C-alpha cells in the first residue's frame, strides 16, 4: 500500500492506495495519521478512492484514527468511498460514526 498526502485550506488529505489490511496497510495508515497529528494537523480527510480492500484490522485503524483525532479536538472525515468499502462500513455500522462525503472537495469544504 502507498499513502500520499497533501494539504489545502489547512485541511490535510490522506490518500491511501491499495489494501488497508493487517500487517502492512494498517500500520502505514496509523503512521500517516500519527505523523499528521505530530505535525499539528487537526482537520483530516481520508480519501479512500484508491483503496481496494479493508479487512477488520483496516477498519480498526480507521476507528483508531477517528478516536485519536477526536480526542485531540480535531475532526476526521472520509471521502470517495468505493462501493465495497462503503459496504464494509455499512456492515460494521460505522457508517453512522463517520462523516462521509462523495467528493474530496465536499469533505474539505465541510472542514474549512
Amino acid at each position: 500500500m502507498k499513502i500520499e498526502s497533501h494539504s489545502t485550506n489547512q485541511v490535510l488529505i490522506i490518500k491511501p492506495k491499495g489494501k488497508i489490511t493487517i500487517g502492512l496497510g494498517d500500520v502505514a495508515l496509523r503512521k500517516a495519521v500519527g505523523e499528521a497529528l505530530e505535525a499539528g494537523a487537526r482537520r483530516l480527510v481520508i480519501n479512500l478512492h484508491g483503496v481496494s480492500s479493508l479487512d477488520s484490522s483496516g477498519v480498526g485503524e480507521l476507528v483508531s484514527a477517528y478516536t485519536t483525532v477526536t480526542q485531540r479536538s480535531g475532526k476526521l472525515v472520509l471521502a470517495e468511498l468505493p462501493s465495497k468499502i462503503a459496504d464494509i462500513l455499512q456492515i460494521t455500522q460505522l457508517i453512522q460514526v463517520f462523516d462521509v462525503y462523495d467528493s474530496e472537495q465536499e469533505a474539505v469544504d465541510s472542514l474549512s
Partner: protein
Amino acid sequence: MSPAESPRTEPSATPEVRITVGSRFENIELIQTVVDDAFSRLGLEDDDRHWVGIAVREAVANAIKHGNREDPDELVDVELRVEGDQAVIRIEDRGSGFDPEQVADPLAPENLLKPSGRGIFYMRRFMDEVSYRFLPGGGTVLVMRKRLASPSVPASDENSEANKESNG
C-alpha cells in the same frame, strides 16, 4: 450414450488447495492469491470472490495472531475442498483455542469504536457457515463453508438432453 454421472455429492478426492505456511502476515497475501485462483476456477463470481477472500484473510490472520502468537515457526494449514455444491475451507493453527461464544458483538454500541474484535464477525457475515473445533492436544480448526452458485463441473450436456423433448 450418456456420460457417467458426476459424483458431486462426494468430497473431492484431492483438495483444490492445500498450503502450509509459517505465521507471518505476509503469507496472508500468498494464501489469498491461491484461494482466489481456485475460486475463480470453481466459477465463483467476482463479487463473491472479494468477500470470500476477505473472510479467508480474517481467518488466516486470526490463526497467525491469536492462534500461533505470530511465531513464524508455528504453522498454519489451509485446505480448500469441494463437497457437493459447497466450497469448504479448513484452517488449522497450533493455538490453545478460545470460546467463540464469548467473543463480544462488534455491533453493540459499547463496542462500535473498539479498534479490534471484528474478524469473526466478518467471517460469519461473508460465509454461509463458520464453525470451530478444538483439538485435544492443542490446535484450533476453523471450517468455513460457502455455497457455489454454479456446479464446479460445467454441465452443458444436461441442457441439450432437456431440449430434445420436442424433437419427435
